[in-house]
């Protein structure tokens, strides 16, 4: 009894009904193909999200002022002006795991150059903005510490803003008007594209935060809405998260048991949350595809049962000349395995093709991981054995006398 003989018989049996074998395999092909395509699309989405999160600045933390109650109504996180300039300085000075800190003061306004104008969200930061957001200046320079100290009227434009105000021109060194005040364009940031939520990150303008507070503000001086912090490393920012909280609690004289009047958010946590979301999506898509794989397995079982019935007499002959029941079982298991493995192989190729096609057409990155290939191949094998076992067992349990008489 040898494997070559079994394989030969199996190949002959499957080759005899090529159409039937092909249709049976189709169930597995579609199942495996769908699993591979779905998982690769899901993993592509996951990768896209994480690369976007990284593009917002690695190791980044946000410190936001806390909730403010006004007449019993919660004004929401960030409404209070509990985060001060001194807090930001203290964070920079006292926490060694912090690499860069910048306060953020938000404003907005109409930018005017010649007969062009553009309404934009203005961010007031300090000179460490490019390091924190890992956002390079493409043309010109970012403003420096002296500009921040003296609240200079300098502005750095996002790519979109620069293109709107200066079509076909070099904006660096030009003077634009913001709320009727002249600002010198120091530089233009490189294009960063859409954020995770589909916002154009390049539709922005950066000025020193002191300038927002002293020059652009009206009657009330806008408070620091946020502080952006980067740690010296990934573990550093984890550590910094805790240390910042401790420092601010101490500075704000918050006793034990009292809740924070600020919030520290770690971009790594945001990344983890969205990674979890896309993982769930991937699993969901994958499991729907897996159901079709199981349906394919039922197809195999069906056709193997037909095959056992058709070959009852042949089984009887083989038993009469000395095939043990186990050998008959192995014979039919081999045939169902061949169907599912070949189907799995073709399915992997088709699934990889589909995900390639999708990334080509939609410009969506897809990723055929070796894990998903391995898992779906293993799954196909398991299905071949699982759904092939019952027909094989039925064949092995035949009575040779009955089988020989079968017409």
């Amino acid at each position, binding site marked *: 009894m040898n494997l070559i003989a079994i394989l030969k018989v199996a190949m002959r049996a499957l080759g005899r009904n090529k159409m039937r074998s092909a249709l049976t395999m189709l169930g597995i092909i579609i199942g495996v193909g769908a699993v591979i395509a779905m998982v690769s699309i899901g993993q592509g989405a996951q990768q896209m999200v994480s690369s976007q999160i990284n593009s917002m600045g690695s190791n980044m933390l946000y410190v936001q002022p806390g909730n403010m109650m006004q007449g019993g109504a919660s004004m929401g996180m960030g409404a209070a002006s509990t985060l001060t300039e001194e807090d930001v300085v203290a964070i920079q000075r006292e926490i060694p795991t912090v690499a860069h800190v910048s306060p953020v003061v938000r404003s907005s306004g109409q930018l005017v150059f010649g007969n062009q104008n553009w309404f934009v969200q203005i961010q007031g930061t300090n000179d460490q903005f490019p390091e924190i957001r890992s956002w390079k200046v493409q043309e010109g320079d970012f403003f420096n510490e002296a500009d921040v100290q003296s609240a200079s009227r300098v502005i750095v434009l996002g790519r979109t803003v620069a293109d709107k105000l200066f079509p076909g021109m070099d904006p660096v060194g030009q003077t634009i008007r913001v709320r009727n005040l002249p600002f010198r364009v120091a530089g233009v940031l490189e294009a960063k594209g859409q954020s995770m939520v589909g916002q154009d990150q390049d539709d922005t303008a950066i000025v020193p935060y002191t300038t927002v507070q002293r020059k652009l503000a009206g009657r009330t001086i806008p408070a620091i809405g946020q502080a952006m912090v980067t740690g010296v490393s990934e573990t550093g920012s984890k550590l910094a998260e805790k240390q910042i909280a401790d420092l601010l609690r101490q500075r704000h004289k918050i006793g034990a048991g009292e809740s924070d009047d600020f919030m520290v958010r770690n971009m790594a946590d945001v990344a983890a949350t969205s990674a979890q979301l896309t993982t769930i999506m991937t699993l969901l898509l994958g499991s729907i595809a897996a159901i079709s794989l199981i349906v394919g397995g039922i197809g195999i079982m069906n056709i193997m049962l037909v095959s056992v019935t058709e070959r009852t007499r042949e089984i009887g002959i083989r038993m009469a000349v000395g095939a*043990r029941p186990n050998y008959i079982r192995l014979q039919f298991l*081999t045939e169902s395995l061949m169907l599912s493995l070949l189907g799995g192989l073709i399915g992997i190729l088709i699934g990889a093709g589909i995900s390639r096609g999708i990334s080509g057409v939609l410009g969506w990155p897809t990723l055929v991981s070796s894990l998903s290939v391995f898992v779906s191949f293993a799954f196909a094998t398991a299905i071949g054995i699982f759904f092939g076992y019952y027909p094989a067992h039925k064949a092995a349990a035949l009575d040779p006398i009955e089988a020989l008489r079968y017409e």
Partner: protein
Amino acid sequence: MIVDTGRKVNIAGPQEDSGAVIRVERVHKIYKMGDVEVHALHGASLSVNRGEFVSIMGPSGSGKSTMMNIIGCLDRPTKGQYFLAGQDVSKLNKAQLADIRNQRVGFVFQSFNLVPRTSALENVELPLVYAGVGSSERLRRAREALAIVGLSDRERNMPNQLSGGQQQRVAIARSLVNHPSIILADEPTGALDTRTSTEVMEIFQRLNRERSLTIIVVTHEPDIADYGTRIVSFRDGRIKRDVPVESRRDAAAVLRELPPPGEDEDDEQ
């Protein structure tokens, strides 16, 4: 994948020369068909010595087929014992019975029972595959067996490319390829014309004479039964008559008497 290679059967001692190859002792066989019990064999006993050529006769329902199945190790007796080549095989399990059939018994059926879409050579090799014989040895022995039945030139043919007589000769080659203790033929000439039948019986007689093969043929036809050395008749699950053949027919001589075949009678189908 688990493949069992150690396939050789443990056959207890070489006792074939001690006399009886087949010793069936008071076997009963009861089939249950729903609530009804059918008593197919009522304590039949039979002993066949090495080199005998036994013809088994009897009307349908007489128990002869049941006896054949038991002798061929396709079935087990409900009661009683069966010794094949000295080994008690009446209590063996399915896998062990398969091994005994493989090593000890060669089958020839009325409807030939070749594996379809499989060449003559591969059909003859089949018992050797299950015996775990290597491929070159398999080929050598299968060719040798095909030569004995005179079909060396047809080894590549599929069963549907062979006439009935040729198919039966392939079946005979398959039955003797593993050097069995007995060859069991169940109405081997039932589907063949007179001349082809005689040719088949000639092969059996030759194997019996030249190789001292023990041959058991079940038949309805008294003519065919007379090619044997002994006739055992069944009725109602018992052996009714067990007599030696007084004037045994010689198939080779009968063939010479027959009118010469028209063209090649093997291709008439």
